[in-house]
């Protein structure tokens, strides 16, 4: 027991070390159903769910039979206490039984393969209908860029897609590309994951039939902040989606009361990486900030998008997301306040 003591202290102590701010994300996540693969709300995820249950059932049946044999034989054939030590009969084997337990697995595998192949084709080879939405998803080191080429909208980290009616499906097709290293786009309740690889274009599609917010995140190791490359998909009925598109198309509002903040924005390094439509900011390395406040989170889901969190973020992003590629801006307190005051007008 004494040897355990340091370890126990470590375990008890770790929550204290870790009493870190979750920047409001815990409360926000708790309102969203957890991203479980067995609660699908979109056709690809649904098909996977079906084939998954089938596979699990088959495997569970095999497990019960084989594990039953193992347990039976270790109970039935254990050497009894006080045994005379006489060696049991030496059975070399049985070709028919070898044959049987080769054939049965092949039959099972055969059925599984057929089912698998059909599901692969029905998900991967689905044609893109004309009234679908097209989104370019671009993975960056540690955030997501979403571009709607047919609708003229650019946003980040929170993907908006319309609800798809089973009778009149309006699926969303995603073209996946990467600006740097390999990532993987994954929203468990909507579809399986598809890798986002530089110098290669992958596609996938979703057609959610239930409105709501769906959590996802990057699933391919992509460097320091792989863990905080989160994303959300907002599924809304078509009219709401259209309203969101219309709002996103607006240029940034110029509010005279925050002129000083805007000047700071336009005269510091911010403009090298960020876009604000209608200003000098045309950088492409960071997320488009034109409608920053329309998003619920910042830092690719690392923190809730509140003015306080924004201040912390701009002052030094590594407080929230150590290793993030955005540099600390080192502004005076007043400049920081004014800059964030400007940012919160970007609805």
């Amino acid at each position, binding site marked *: 027991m004494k040897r355990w003591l340091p370890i126990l202290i470590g375990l008890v102590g770790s929550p204290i070390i870790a009493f870190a701010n979750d920047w409001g994300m815990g409360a926000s996540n708790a309102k969203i159903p957890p991203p479980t693969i067995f609660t699908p709300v979109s056709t690809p995820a649904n098909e996977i769910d079906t084939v998954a249950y089938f596979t699990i059932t088959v495997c569970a049946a095999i497990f019960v039979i084989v594990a039953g044999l193992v347990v039976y034989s270790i109970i039935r054939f254990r050497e009894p206490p006080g045994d005379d030590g*006489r060696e049991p009969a030496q059975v070399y084997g049985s070709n028919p039984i070898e044959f049987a337990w080769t*054939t049965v697995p092949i039959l099972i595998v055969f059925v599984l393969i057929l089912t698998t192949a059909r599901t692969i084709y029905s998900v991967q080879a689905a044609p893109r209908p004309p009234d679908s939405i097209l989104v370019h998803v671009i993975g960056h080191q540690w955030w997501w860029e979403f571009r709607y080429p047919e609708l003229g909208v650019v946003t980040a980290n929170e993907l908006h897609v319309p609800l798809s009616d089973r009778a009149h499906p309006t699926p969303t097709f995603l073209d996946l590309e990467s600006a740097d290293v390999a990532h993987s786009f994954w929203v468990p309740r909507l579809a399986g994951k598809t890798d986002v690889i530089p110098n290669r274009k992958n596609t996938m599609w979703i057609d959610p039939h239930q409105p709501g917010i769906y959590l996802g995140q990057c699933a391919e190791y992509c460097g320091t902040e792989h863990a905080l490359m989160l994303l959300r998909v907002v599924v809304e009925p078509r009219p709401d989606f259209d309203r969101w598109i219309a709002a996103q198309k607006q240029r940034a509002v110029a509010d005279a009361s925050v002129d000083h903040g805007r000047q700071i924005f336009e005269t510091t390094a911010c403009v090298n990486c960020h876009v604000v439509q209608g200003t000098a900011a045309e950088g492409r390395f960071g997320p488009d900030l034109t409608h920053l406040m329309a998003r619920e989170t910042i830092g690719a889901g690392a923190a809730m998008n509140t003015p306080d969190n924004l201040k912390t973020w701009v002052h030094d992003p590594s407080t929230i997301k150590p290793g993030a590629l955005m540099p600390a801006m080192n502004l005076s307190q007043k400049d920081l306040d004014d800059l964030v005051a400007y940012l919160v007008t970007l609805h």
Partner: protein
Amino acid sequence: MVENSQNEVRLPAPSAAPMLFALGITLAFAGVVTSVSVSIVGIVIAIAGAVSWFSEVLPTEHEEMVTVTPESVVVVQAKLPVAYLEVGEQLNRAVLPLEIFPYTAGIKGGIAGGVVMAVLAVVQGIIFHGSPWYTINILAATAMPSLAQATTATLSAFNPETLAIALLIHATASLLVGLLYGVMLPMFPRYPAFFAAIVAPLLWTGLLWATLDVINPVLDLRIEWRWFILCQIAFGAVAGYVVDRTEKVRTLQHLPFAVRTGIEARYRANDDQKGDA
């Protein structure tokens, strides 16, 4: 390595050369990420190691003589005889069972049953849907998602691709089940016919009934269960009959596999001359 005398054994002599060579190579590599001087030192050590290694195997291998400690490793004989199996005759070594159907019986049974089943299925298609292709297309839907939304007319038309897939599925399944029959029927010595024609088909049908919506949703929607069971039973009866009619062969208990295949006859002959000591 043949010994000179009975008290000494030749073994390869210990040597530091391999270690030096490995160290040299590692340092040469490490120089890539540290400094060229490390590489140079490494290469020098590696060459020294290699030269000393060569000098140990050329012209002949260095060996050392090790004195053998006289020892008597005695293996004690078991006090009790080995237990025997209670099958027919007295056996304690067995490849079980003692009699089996030849594997070709299973293949033949599978083919016969498969043919009968296919004929019945096609007849069903002709009677109910006026097309021999109907059942074939439906079977192929197991692997073809495009048939999921197909109309009855599409399903009744001839399609070479679906025919190929259906044939593959049917042939594979029939052969495998036939083989299984050939192997398993001797395990049910009392009522082989009952097992082959009733139990196995019903078991198989039950499994399919439970999983068909995943394995083949198209078939699940359109299946006619009575015909389906009829086809299964026909397969089971025919395959079982063909298998059961075949004569059983005794497994070769006492000849080793290698001898049966004729691979190791030479060493067996050797052993026999010496007797089984």
